[in-house]
């Protein structure tokens, strides 16, 4: 469904993406793993057009997204939802205002219908009676859930997740994993996640790709990756300080 071809991006002298090639299948959960600062966020920001590459292309079906003008990209973006690392909820709006925001901007639905959809999506992510709360009143886990409700409120074809479990305790991370699985099954959506949370990855991934030094060095199913002898992948999956990846 999405094909990333030879994607390169530098910031000043720093090469962040150095020829990324990756295929993402429709209706599956693809997890991109890698160390912090390896460019995982930069990679998904290219998919949704928040960044333009120096070289390479991102294809959605047969359409090269990198060649689109901003106005045309906005039409494509309506097919996406995105959950940001810190949830990126609008401080000035209630939970209902946040979740209903895309509907208000892009549909002709009245406030009552938007309210019903918002409540339904909030139920789907396990939240009840939070509509009138402000983002500042929510815990980290609740913010992520509201962020996910907002990301899926337009029933997008593709949802991008930027570090969905960062800053959460292991139990909350596991509940987010369940939520990802439940919503993906229910909606048959293509999910693309970036994370360095390995237990979370094993639980949800249909496909894992490892980003290292600006390239995808290995990819495969959970079982294939567990059996892969690549020492860089092994060190990362096993969380060891010793190995080919230098910590300092």
């Amino acid at each position, binding site marked *: 469904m999405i094909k990333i071809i030879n994607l390169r991006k530098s910031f000043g002298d720093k090469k962040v993406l150095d020829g990324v090639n990756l295929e993402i299948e429709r209706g599956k959960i693809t997890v991109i793993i890698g160390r912090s600062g390896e460019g995982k966020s930069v990679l998904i920001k290219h998919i949704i057009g928040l960044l333009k590459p120096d070289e390479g292309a991102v294809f959605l079906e047969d359409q090269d997204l990198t060649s689109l003008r901003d106005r045309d990209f906005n039409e494509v*973006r309506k097919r996406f939802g995105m959950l940001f690392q810190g949830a990126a909820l609008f401080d000035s709006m209630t939970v209902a205002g946040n979740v209903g925001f895309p509907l208000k901007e892009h549909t002709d639905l009245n406030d009552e219908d938007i309210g019903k959809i918002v409540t339904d999506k909030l139920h789907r992510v396990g939240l009840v009676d939070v509509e009138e709360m402000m983002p500042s009143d929510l815990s980290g886990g609740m913010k992520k859930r509201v962020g996910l409700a907002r990301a899926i409120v337009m029933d997008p074809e593709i949802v991008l997740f930027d570090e969905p479990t960062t800053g959460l305790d292991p139990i909350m991370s596991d509940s987010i994993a369940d939520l990802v699985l439940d919503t993906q099954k229910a909606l048959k959506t293509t999910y693309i996640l970036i994370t360095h949370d390995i237990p979370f990855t094993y639980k949800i991934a249909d496909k894992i790709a490892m980003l290292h030094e600006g390239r995808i060095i290995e990819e495969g199913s959970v079982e294939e990756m567990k059996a892969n002898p690549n020492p860089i992948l092994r060190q990362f999956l096993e969380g060891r300080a010793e190995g080919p990846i230098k910590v300092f």
Partner: protein
Amino acid sequence: MRRQLESIGRYSEDVVTTAGQMAIMLASAFLYAFTPPIKFRNIFKQMEFVGVQSLFVVILTGSFTGMVLALQSYNALKRFGAESLVGPTVALSMARELGPVLTGLMVTGRAGSAMATELGTMRVTEQIDALFAMAVNPIRYLVVPRVIAGILMFPVLTIVTDFVGVIGGYAVGVKLLGINPGIYIGRTVDFVQMDDIVTGLTKSLVFGLITSLVACYNGFYATGGAEGVGRAATSSVVMGSIMILISDYLMSSFAV
């Protein structure tokens, strides 16, 4: 020597980049301002923030400026036996110069810094990226209402400043210094022409554009977490105030 040249080059590059980005932001805002759908609710919300919430500060500034202007001009004019000109002096100074400039500076300090802080916080917490990701253009959603509010509300606030300044001047001139009220009002009406008021209001319109655009620019491109947001707020006030003073001189020199 080489290092100095490099730093001059870097600084020049920053200035040109800033000017270019600001011009692009202004052009985009102008384009979106006239392209439907127009979000009137957002515009009214910003007008309330820039206008209504700045009333107290401009009333305070305008009234005390009018009062001190009456006192000082009385002292000067008395030496020539021209106390009757205190009224026109206060009114002309307020209408042509002090009303728009002081309103501009005070509202830049209050609303401009708040705009930059809000947009800067939205930038560093990825709320602006979230708008992009939801196919909502942040320039249309965030910048356009603020710029329109600035352009519309600065002249209104300037009228308020002018009015309370003249009232303040009258109170000091007539009640405190004993100038004949008939002469005070009569001379003021004789000397102040519509052109003087229009000149001041035109200036304030430009100051409204400068303040809102500079604040939005600094907030929109803020980087570096909480420190970056603080820097954006400071830059918006410093850059906005300097641009108001320079443009005031340029507009005054054309108007003379």
